[in-house]
């Protein structure tokens, strides 16, 4: 079930970053760079997105000893999340679009 989620500017930034390439999973640092959000803002948002069913997370399947680093957690939007995020961002674009100005003659 997809729960309701309050749309804030940081949430929309995260959604836009995830929606940029919906099939590509991203880990936290990548998303911080893509959104410009601090870690203290990003991770609570990712958690809320997961809880609300908009995003899903998956642990990387690597051997830490062989990779020389701990395994990371990757995030991507769920199919329903893709649909809802697209709708929210489209609404935002409509609301923030400059009113259409028809070219008028100077006189």
């Amino acid at each position, binding site marked *: 079930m997809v729960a309701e989620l309050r749309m804030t500017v940081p949430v929309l930034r995260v959604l836009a970053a995830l929606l940029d390439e919906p099939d590509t999973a991203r880990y936290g640092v990548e998303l911080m760079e893509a959104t410009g959000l601090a870690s203290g803002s990003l991770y609570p948002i990712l958690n*809320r997105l997961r809880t*609300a069913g908009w995003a899903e997370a998956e642990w990387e399947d690597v051997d830490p000893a062989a990779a020389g680093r*701990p395994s990371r957690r990757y995030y991507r939007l769920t199919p329903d999340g893709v649909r809802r995020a697209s709708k929210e961002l489209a609404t935002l674009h409509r609301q923030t679009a400059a009113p259409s100005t028809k070219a008028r003659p100077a006189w």
Partner: protein
Amino acid sequence: MVRWLTLLSLRIAVRRLPSALRTEMRAEWSAELHAITARPGSAARGLAFAASLAATRPGAWQSPSTIGAQMSTMLKSGWKPTVLWLLAGPVLATAVFALLTAARALPSDGEQFTGLVQVALLAAIVGGLVPVGRAAARPGMVPGRAPVVWAVVLVAAGAIAADLVWPVVGLGDTPVAYAHGLVTLLVALAFWAAVVLATERWMGALVRRGRPVLATLVAVVGTMVAVNLALVAPAWLIPSVEAWGYNYPPMERTFFELPLLDATFEQNVPQAHLILAMSPYLLVALAVPVLAYRWRIAQGVPAGVPGPALDGATAQLQT
């Protein structure tokens, strides 16, 4: 030093998390920190990463729509107890208020008439409270803390809102009378809350010690004292209440004369004060869920969780 501060910040951040998230977030952040600090000259960036996490409000991990989410959780965990507790106070108060209004519309016949009204209203109060009390005794009908808190908050907010709206809808209070009415109401609510909280603690202690009869007595007397204080304390603290024309009976008689209080207001009482005419019933009704909740907690039954063995009536209510 920077590394030490980074790890300390991360530990603080993990400790401030909701317990269900700690293990997974610790693993995730360790991996992220590794990714950040693997780059040369990025120790400060790692510290900023950890410090930002440590400074995050614990509430940020929940959805910002906390009110909606809480209501949703309450309703999912059992809508019948939630509805029962949320509506008990307002429904009872509205019923009594309607009775009062109807009684005022009937032709008066002196003392005999007021006596009849008193008996009818007393019956309405008892008739309203008995089913609520009986329902409260069933484990499956005791909600979690949230519905009880919400019930009290919503009704108190409603009473205050009514006081705020009253003059706006044209019932004719001057600003002074309006402010006076609001302060009086807030003082009344503060006294009620203080006595009910003290009562529920005392009653809970008695229940834990296996003294249910004494606990019941404390609950009943405490509720009476709470309502009486709510009514008379404003007159003690704010001398001008008397000047507005209140005509309260002495405290020891107040509870038994509650149904008559409405009739004792004189014509020049600020309209905003009339909310107090309804408040005794509201305050009695609101005390019931608070005390029932404490009783159930004191018995060691987790609130909000249906009891393991239900009687037939409760089982029917839950289906």
